[in-house]
């Protein structure tokens, strides 16, 4: 009897191992098909220069711009933008010593798509089922590549990073993001709310060994006259090899606390 138990246990273990080995091989094969984007990356444009620049350096290009290109608002939303910009400019001018603070937590990752353009370091963690983008200001994006669709509408609600699904088109990761809190940075850390139809498409790929490109198209049929496409890129970081949290904010460390909606400066 004892011998039978040993044999049965051994057979079970062998079967389990054989299954595990087979699964491991399949999994290794799945990983082998994925591109290698390991390493650390940082965006070549930052908040303030990328999205949110309401005027070019010459002042000639009025309007909300992303990397210098004007967002094609329709008349209704251009008027909303103009009003928001006027209010933001007035708020900034009212007290230049205490700039207006954003509506979001400034000690964390900003809203999409600004969260891809912060002066931070980023990593792409690629698995067959999901690509996860993490950064040093507490940003995490989950891009599911296991074939799932977006959740049905009654199971979606707006979040800072939205719901992202993707698939691989060769070595390009094609990403579709919906259910984004539609606050885009306007400038001076003030955001403009776009419509609930805001939707992003992205194509991420390596361009050479040291450049990772993200081409995104912004769709908002309620607010834009046409989809808006822009491409930005990340450079490989070579002067550090660590991800370190940059947002360790609390009352003892944050010397620029927000008071009455405005940044302050504590000399202590």
């Amino acid at each position, binding site marked *: 009897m004892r011998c039978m138990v040993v044999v049965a246990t051994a057979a079970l273990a062998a079967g389990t191992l054989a299954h595990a080995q087979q699964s491991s091989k399949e999994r290794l094969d799945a990983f082998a098909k994925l591109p290698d984007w390991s390493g650390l990356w940082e965006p070549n444009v930052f*908040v*303030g220069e990328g999205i949110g620049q309401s005027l070019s350096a010459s002042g000639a290009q009025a309007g909300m711009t992303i990397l210098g290109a004007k967002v094609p608002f329709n008349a209704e939303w251009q008027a909303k933008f103009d009003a928001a910009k006027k209010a933001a400019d007035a708020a900034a001018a009212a007290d230049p010593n205490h*700039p207006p*603070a954003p509506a979001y937590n400034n000690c964390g990752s900003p809203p999409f798509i600004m969260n891809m353009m912060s002066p931070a370091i980023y990593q792409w963690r690629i698995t067959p089922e999901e690509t996860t983008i993490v950064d040093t200001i507490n940003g995490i994006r989950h891009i599911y590549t296991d074939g799932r669709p977006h959740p049905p509408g009654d199971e979606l609600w707006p979040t800072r990073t939205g719901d992202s699904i993707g698939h691989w088109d060769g070595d390009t990761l094609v990403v579709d993001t919906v259910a984004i809190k539609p606050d885009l940075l306007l400038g001076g*850390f003030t955001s403009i709310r776009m419509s609930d139809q805001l939707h992003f498409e992205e194509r991420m790929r390596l361009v050479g060994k040291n450049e990772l490109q993200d081409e995104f198209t912004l769709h908002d049929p309620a607010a834009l006259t046409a989809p808006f496409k822009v491409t930005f890129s990340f450079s490989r970081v070579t002067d550090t090899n660590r991800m370190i949290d940059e947002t360790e904010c609390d009352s003892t460390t*944050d010397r*620029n606390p927000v008071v009455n909606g405005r940044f302050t*400066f504590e000399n202590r």
Partner: protein
Amino acid sequence: MKHPNTLVALLAALITGSALAHHSAAMFDAAKEVTLAGTVKEFQWMSPHCWIQLLVPNPAQPSAAPVEWGIEMDNPLGLSRHGWKPGSLKPGDKIVVKARPLRDGSPGGQVVSVTTADGKPIGDTAEVTR
């Protein structure tokens, strides 16, 4: 400039007054730069920003108590990429800081560069603005 993005960030700062993730830099006057020769009271190595508390004597009033300036810097990760370490500055160190001052005239500013009293950069380069 060690880091290629420094130029981009500086350009961004010139255009918008801010390349910071944490807060707007509009409180600093980007058109001005002050040079502060003083003694380190404290070097605060912490996120979201590192700080130098610098005691700056007034040459016109050598008998008066020095003024304590708060100099805001990048976060530890950013500074470490410029060769800085938690022990790069110690209380009592004599240094020279260039900074963009607060618009309201109070003794505070955003760092531009830091050197020893005899002009040697601390870290890889004197300039530490990101």
